[in-house]
């Protein structure tokens, strides 16, 4: 076998209280798409940060093309031919495409020349981009193109991609895979991070699986079943939600022709959104990130008021009522961002309980907070939802993402809502906790609540929803029953169709 492109030997990185990577060894070959697979917290991102020079390993070594490779900062990694496409945090909204690309390059050419190269390269790879567009106005898929082009302009030997498909429609995923295959054919290796098993089985030549910081196995995904991969990743089998009988009741939440302007320069306006959910039903709303998910949740929760007559809760118009009044009437919600939106990071779990449950749970007496009752309520949420925390007095930010998510969802469910609206209920949560949260949502529906789940995880939506609708640039499609939906239909609903034509042009 030929020498590998990159060989990792004994890579170890510890943070206080946690070993992120423990003696990890594997090779990435030339012309290879290599999957790095693992749950959240398995140590994938620490590993790639070491390869990209953002984090220094405590121990271990890397050899790139037969030479020692110890990047002390990303620019060194880039000089050695290693590029990275991030999942979050690496674009500048207020700057244009060319400026964003220039920032990721070591020696960018003159602006005009750079713009020309962006045009050429982006079209060559089927990812057309206008260099003078302001990045904040681009869709999630287009933003990813900026990152990919930024790497491609430096002719990388190794391209690291962190969960690239989480922001794409199925059709966009196809285009991306074509691009990646083309790159492989031209001699670029790709380290592809994901937890989506089917994707990896379609695309990747080799897969390395991490669990709790350790390498579990390196295998050929095409010869391994998704179930085997999943078990290696999770380390145990986990409960899938029980099938259930849906008995539908009256319409609990009805939204009619809701339009709202964008909340900020780079927000999404809601355009003529209509939906209705019955008691006992779960409505799943899919869509690529940034197509109005946050804005829809804010309109439903009451954070932003909407024109009179647009939102009806159990037959009453609540459009002009704020979050407190809507909660009193039985509409509870859970925003996507746990820290800072659903919960105040520096406040204790008890205080965060008061945040939404003050009135429904009778924690107030003449405006004074009954802290003992608040603590009781919090402890009830903690025990019912198996939130791992030292105590109810612990600050929210001290909890792991999964545990905090269980807490904020549990906090709403424990208040027995008539209608529950949640956005990304299992984002960044490990498989066991995600399963528990989904089960709790289904149980709530079974008890007669109407539920809206907004999520970018299509598998999740297919698993728990009765009907499915998609958000695209602030428009919501009609909801259709999930039974019998094909991935192509879903893709069209998510609005890939218009992007397609441009991309093939």
């Amino acid at each position, binding site marked *: 076998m030929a020498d590998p492109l990159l060989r990792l030997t004994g890579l170890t990185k510890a*943070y206080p209280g946690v070993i*992120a990577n423990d003696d990890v060894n594997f090779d990435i070959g030339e012309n290879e798409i290599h999957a790095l697979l693992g749950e959240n917290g398995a140590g994938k991102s*620490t590993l790639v*940060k070491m390869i990209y*020079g*953002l*984090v220094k390993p405590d121990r271990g070594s890397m050899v790139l093309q037969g030479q020692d490779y110890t990047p002390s*900062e*990303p*620019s060194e990694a*880039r000089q050695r031919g290693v590029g990275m496409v*991030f999942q979050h*945090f*690496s*674009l*500048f*909204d*207020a*700057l244009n495409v060319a*400026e964003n690309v*220039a*920032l*990721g390059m070591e020696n*960018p050419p003159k602006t005009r020349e750079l713009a020309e190269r962006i045009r050429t390269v982006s079209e060559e790879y089927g990812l057309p981009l206008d260099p003078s567009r302001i990045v904040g106005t681009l869709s999630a898929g287009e933003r990813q193109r900026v990152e990919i082009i930024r790497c491609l302009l430096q002719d990388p030997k190794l391209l690291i991609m962190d969960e690239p498909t989480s922001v794409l429609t199925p059709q966009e995923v196809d285009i991306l895979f074509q691009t990646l295959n083309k790159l492989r054919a031209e001699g670029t290796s790709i380290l592809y991070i994901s937890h989506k098993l089917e994707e990896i089985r379609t695309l990747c030549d080799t897969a390395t699986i991490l669990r709790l910081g350790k390498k579990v196995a390196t295998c050929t995904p095409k010869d391994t079943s998704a179930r085997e991969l999943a078990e290696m990743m999770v380390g145990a089998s986990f409960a899938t939600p029980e099938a259930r009988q849906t008995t539908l009741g009256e319409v609990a939440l009805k939204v009619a022709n809701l339009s709202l302007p964008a909340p900020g*320069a780079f927000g999404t306006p809601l355009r003529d959104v209509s939906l209705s959910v019955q008691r006992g039903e779960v409505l799943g709303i899919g869509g690529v990130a940034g197509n109005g998910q946050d804005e829809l949740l804010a309109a439903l929760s009451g954070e932003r008021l909407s024109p009179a007559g647009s939102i009806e809760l159990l037959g009453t118009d609540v459009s002009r009522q704020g979050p407190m009044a809507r909660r009193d009437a039985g509409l509870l919600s859970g925003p996507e961002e746990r820290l800072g939106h659903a919960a105040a990071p520096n406040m204790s779990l008890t205080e965060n309980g008061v945040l939404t449950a003050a009135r429904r749970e009778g924690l107030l007496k003449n405006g004074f907070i009954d802290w003992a009752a608040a603590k009781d309520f919090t402890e009830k949420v903690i025990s019912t939802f198996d939130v791992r925390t030292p105590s109810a007095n612990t600050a929210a930010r001290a909890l792991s993402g999964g545990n905090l998510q269980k807490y904020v969802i549990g906090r709403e469910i424990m208040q027995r809502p008539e209608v529950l609206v949640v956005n990304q209920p299992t984002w960044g949560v490990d498989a066991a906790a995600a399963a528990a949260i989904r089960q709790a949502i289904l149980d709530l529906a079974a008890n007669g609540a109407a539920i809206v789940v907004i999520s970018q995880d299509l598998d999740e939506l297919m698993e728990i929803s009765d009907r499915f609708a998609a958000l695209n640039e602030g428009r919501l499609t009609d909801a259709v029953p999930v039974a019998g939906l094909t991935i192509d239909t879903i893709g069209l609903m998510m609005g890939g169709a218009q992007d397609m034509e441009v991309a093939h042009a």
Partner: protein
Amino acid sequence: MDLSSINPVLLVASIMVSATPILLAAIGEMVVERAGVLNLGVEGMMITGAVVGFAVAINTGNPALGFAAAALASAVLSLSFGVLTQLLLSNQVATGLGLTLVGLGLSSLIGKPYEGMKSPTLPKLDMGFLSDLPVVGRMLFSHDLMVYLSLALVIVVWAVLKYTRIGLILRAVGENHDAAHALGYKVVRIRMMAIFFGGACAGLGGAYLSLVRVPQWTEGMTAGAGWIALAIVVFASWRAGRVAIGAYLFGGVTVLQLNLQAAGAAVPVALLSASPYLMTILVLVFISARGAHGAPASLGRPFHASA
């Protein structure tokens, strides 16, 4: 009142002089804010510059040295703000206020022995035939070097931010420090340099007050100029050219009200002397009502490179 006593040529000339200290401080603060840092200590840095510049100019007899020392002293003082906010992650608003209070205390301590003294001032430049032009020569071409330097600085800052790589990196850091960090840029180092630059500019502005504009040292002589510089940055939507416009507008109001007071206008003196501040409030209201655009997205947010 006698409006004819107001000479338009002198008026324009004195507007340029009165705008210069605020322009210097504001252009420096704009660079700091473009890097994503809100330094509310401009007033404190200006007054430190004013007193240090004055003291050095008196002791050396050289106003140029005074300016240099003022820039250095305020820049060093601003580094304390940098260390606190960037390395020790303190709250930028509170630390900026603290910087102002420290600067006010420090300056009156240093300045006590210099009260009532007279310092050498900057000579007017002789710009050959330009200075000899009728009207325009007196208005625009017979000032001291700092007036022109401050305008040149505006152009330099504009060009650097727009056309150079360091300018691009600075804007990127102010826009999204997490992304800049992920790309390997040294967020803290870049912000420290911006803070240092902002401090130096504020120091020059302060020294201009004590060495040219007034020219004397009195306690608390900046009288809110640093805060007005902060307001001008907002007014300018973080653009260099508009900072210059804002500073000159403000200089205009200040000079006009002084002229009106001198001319004995039939307006209460309290209103006239408060007019620069009222005008600043009005401008702020106008800008915010229109929706303040262009604020760097990371402005005032603390950055901590977690793993």
